[in-house]
């Protein structure tokens, strides 16, 4: 890993919900040879606007330039970056274990309590656990399960994050952008044909 002197940054991007937006964003990381650690994309609170949450290792100088270059794209509404201290963040992980192996462990109560595990499915072949938390926490459970039983399948989501500090709300941000709209100009913001 080339992570010496680098920190994990979370990049948050609001964009129009258009074909090819993800590519426009990822190529900016590709150009500088930066690896995306996690990525999560979903509709935001406002219709037609998508939110991307990307984590990547970078130095402060580079991440600032990258975010400016993302922000420059015409269909990107706003882009910014934070370090972990500024954020409440979470990931979700699912673990599939063979039922017979789990039963052989005897009691699982202590593990379930320690890790705050939710059981999503249980049938004669497999049990599916869910754990939410930071990377270290979901990884911790994976490591413990791996020591004791065989984890048949494991999947972890990208990070979702919310800023702790006072930050402009998306709707306020949009209102500000719309202030620049010339009076009487009623361009339809929705792209056609998609």
């Amino acid at each position: 890993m080339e992570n010496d002197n680098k920190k994990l940054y979370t990049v948050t991007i609001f964009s129009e919900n258009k074909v090819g937006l993800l590519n426009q964003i990822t190529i900016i990381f590709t150009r500088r040879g930066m690896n995306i650690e996690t990525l999560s994309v979903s509709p935001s609170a406002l219709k037609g606007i998508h939110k991307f949450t990307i984590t990547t290792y970078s130095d402060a100088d580079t991440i600032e330039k990258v975010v400016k270059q993302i922000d420059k794209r015409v269909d990107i509404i706003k882009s910014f970056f934070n370090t972990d201290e500024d954020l409440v963040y979470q990931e979700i992980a699912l673990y599939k274990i063979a039922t017979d192996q789990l039963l052989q462990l005897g009691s699982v109560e202590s593990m379930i309590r320690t890790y705050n595990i939710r059981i999503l499915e249980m049938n004669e072949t497999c049990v599916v656990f869910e754990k939410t938390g930071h990377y270290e926490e979901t990884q911790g459970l994976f490591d413990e399960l791996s020591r004791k039983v065989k984890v048949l399948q494991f999947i972890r989501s990208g990070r979702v994050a919310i800023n702790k500090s006072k930050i402009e709300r998306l709707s306020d941000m949009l209102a500000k952008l719309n202030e620049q709209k010339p009076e009487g100009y009623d361009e339809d913001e929705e792209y056609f044909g998609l």
Partner: protein
Amino acid sequence: MSEKISGSEILMKSLLAENVDTIFGYPGGSIIPVFDALYDYQDRFKYILTRHEQGATHAAQGYARAVGKPGICIVTSGPGATNAITGIGDAMMDSTPLIVIAGQVQTRMLGTDAFQEIDLVGITQPITKWSYQIRRAEDIAWAVARAFYIANSGRPGPVVLDFAKNAQIEKAEFEYKKCIFTRGYIPYPVINEKQIETAADIINEAKKPLALVGQGVILSNAEKELMDFLEKADIPAASTLLGLSAMPSDFPLNKGFLGMHGNIGPNMKTNECDVLIAIGMRFDDRVTGNLATYAKQAKVVHLDIDPSELDKNVKATAKVLGDAKQTLKLLTAATKKASHKEWIDSFKEHEQTEYKKVIQKEVFPENGPIKMGEVVNLISEATHNQAILVTDVGQNQIMAARYFKYTQTRSVITSGGLGTMGFGIPAAIGAKVGVPNRTVCLFVGDGGFQMTMQELGTIMQDCIGVKIILLNNNFLGMVRQWQELFFNKRYSSTIMKNPDFVAIAKAYGISTQCVDKREDLDAAIADMLKDDKPYLLVVNTESEGMVYPMTPAGDTVTNILIG
């Protein structure tokens, strides 16, 4: 409800609504319906058929740079589109408003590896301001309006419209509304008065200020504002390659050309000045050399319209975000009248050194083979310094940039950022088509000439009066220069066995002449300039000439070789 017309006709009407007068292009299977519509609009558009799609893009760039309007280029899908990539990339690097309309296979065939299908939007996303696929006739007017708005506003750049064939044929109603806003895109940032004040305070304190002028000044039509500012605060200035002609060559505060092959004065003074004022320029590595030793002693004031340029390469003490025409005006008002005579006079010493050690030998040689610099100087003089200079890339480009002189703005068209060999001939075509009343002089090397010499056919077909000066040294001169200096004269792949260029020009019916001797130059130039017809002047120059001064790549800006 208005009558429904075909998508291709909607495109024609939309282009007319944007005041397009000239289109460069090349037809093909997936764009035939558009060319069919163009057939009915021949009286309203000047259409130039190039010989290759790369030529169409560079011609559109040349047009855009000379005229100040977006250049339009129509090509087909697949190879037509990929051939356009170099021009699109070049326009991105040099902030040129360029709109490329490319055919695309029918929507229902997308993703099936159909004949001449290529993912143009995917390919061009990194090298365009906006790249969009039109899939329905209803979307065409909207997409064209948005394309013009984005290509030509703020920091200009290329836009690609990937036009599916079914949308060219299908019918829709036509209603055109110009685009003047799109949320999330702020082409003209609101100017922050605090930033102007901070910048003015620094400039008012300066004892040894130096201004660096970039193409941003030309793009925002801020030439007058620039000179007002420089005169009021008495600040010497030098230009980047693309900023040349923002100030006339004889403007007293114009101290020349920056960077790797720039003038000694401004490069040396970069590391002596106390305040460096960068205006619409992006601190390209060919200007700065090693950033770690670049202007470390100076406070840097950076004016730019693009926030992503601020602090990108050089950290600025004061950043002024905005359109140069407005920011310069405000900055001039906030700046005190000053005089820096002693500082400005201190450039003279370097000018004299450069004249003695470099310019005299290059421009006024008394014997030996013909020098590139002397040819450039003679032609500049013969055109009364009023021609548009177009260059290719390499030694011809730098010699032309160094020794051509300018009296008006938008007089230099060259591939700066991408450094595209082969740019010259088509770009000169575009410039001449756009500004037919000016003389257009292209300086090109034997390498670059052969990259796009098929465009001589375009020149022949439309009798486009470009004056091509082929500086022939039978070498890829700039690479050879580096091989001489840094690779022990191992001339790997730089020696050219060239064709009979005069015979080639004759084959295209273009007047031509080849000059080997110094004493024949004046007459040949006079013959070339006697009318407004195309001309190829081949000048066989010194085969192993060197471009000096030179700061080796990545070296300190003041570490200048003078030969």
